[in-house]
């Protein structure tokens, strides 16, 4: 089964206006999913991670309802049927 990535409105332009994209592979972890995203959707990858391959400080990734910061970071498992959700922080002025 493909892995679904749920995009915020700011990134949908890069996915042809869609709010979700399906990755062709289903890696076991968030790190693997991001590598697959880099391969399939490099522009979206670039918005989520810097060129140092670090998640941007005001971008949050959730597997289901769990923030990966508190569930293993890039090693967080991505179970079958789950979604990787991209959510910008509620920060800024």
């Amino acid at each position, binding site marked *: 089964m493909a892995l679904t990535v749920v995009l915020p409105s700011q990134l949908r332009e890069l996915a042809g206006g869609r709010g979700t994209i399906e990755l062709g592979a289903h890696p076991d972890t968030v790190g693997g999913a991001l590598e697959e995203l880099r391969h399939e959707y490099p522009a979206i990858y*670039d918005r989520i991670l810097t*060129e140092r391959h670090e998640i941007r400080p005001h971008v949050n990734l959730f597997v289901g309802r769990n923030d990966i910061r508190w569930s293993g970071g890039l090693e967080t498992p991505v179970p079958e049927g789950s979604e990787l959700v991209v959510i910008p*922080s509620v920060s800024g002025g």
Partner: protein
Amino acid sequence: MPAEPKGVEGRAGDVVLAVGTTKGAFLFHAGGDRSAWTVDGPHFPGEEVYAVAFDQRRGAPVLWAAPGSPFFGTTLRRSDDLGVTWSNGDERAVKFPEGSELALQRIWQIRPGRADDPDSMYLGVEPSCVFESRDGGASWSPVDGFLTHEHRPYWTPGAGGLCLHTILPDPAGPDRMVVAFSTGGVYRTDDGGRSWRPRNVGVRAEFLPDKHPEFGQCVHKVVHHPARPERLFLQNHWGLYRSDDWGEQWHDIANGVPSDFGFAMAIHPTDPDTVFIVPLESDQFRCTPDARLRVYRTRDAGASWHALERGLPQHGAYETVLRDALETDEAAPAGVYFGTRSGKVFVSADDGDSWSLVTEGLPPVLCVKAAVLA
């Protein structure tokens, strides 16, 4: 939702202003007399736009902007129809290379290269670096001699970040270029970017124990005129200076200004002796002195400065003009333009002698660039 921007349909001789703000970019358009302005925008709503540029070296105007999302990073966008459409920024062409341990924070300056080399372009970015394009902006790479400079570990950010905000190519040839950044100061290459040396002799660093270090000055802006490129004018974090020899020596020219603190500086389009600044009271109180909004102009290369205040508010004006928010056009008499952190844009169509308010209520203005359409 903000208004849908439509872009500008300009004719030869019209003037277009591109105004970058903390929440998007706006385009102002007027006929050659610069008396009646329309506004279009915001382009890139919600994104900070620290750098915009016009490039007419091939005739048709190309408009560049560097919108930056606080969440998803900075992109470089191009419009060939004055904002009707923009390149979509799908590919982030401006990146530090693997192994540099650096990540792009902001693009602070977009600088077309020499007139006789219309494919050359430069970017000044944060963290401080110069990027170069040799194909008209399609691809970019950092200038290696600057990226790997031995001083890099010692450069420290000012309040705005470690920003490279000034790029001055030598119009005579590709070897020489001056750049300036905060903090670090002025650096110059004489060999096409392979090596860079600090050029800060005479420039004070009031905030350091050693007031005259080799580098580390907080230079806010440097300008020059293409007809006399070796003569540089510098607005420092405390200090106004001129160099007549590409930065070998700097001389204090703060003669008759209410404060030598400020950010913005612009050169007259045809007179190399005429420069405009907007002094601010101090680094502790970064507002126009005495609550009066005054542009200062020298017509004798800094020997004297005179206040320009006709049409500008002279009571209760606690204004700030940032380093790239003061600009001139190439018309005669020259248009002079600036935007404030309070969201006002002022225009002069007579070399700065008199001013009018074009708009207020914009988000804080970060940069202003002007073009007389070819």
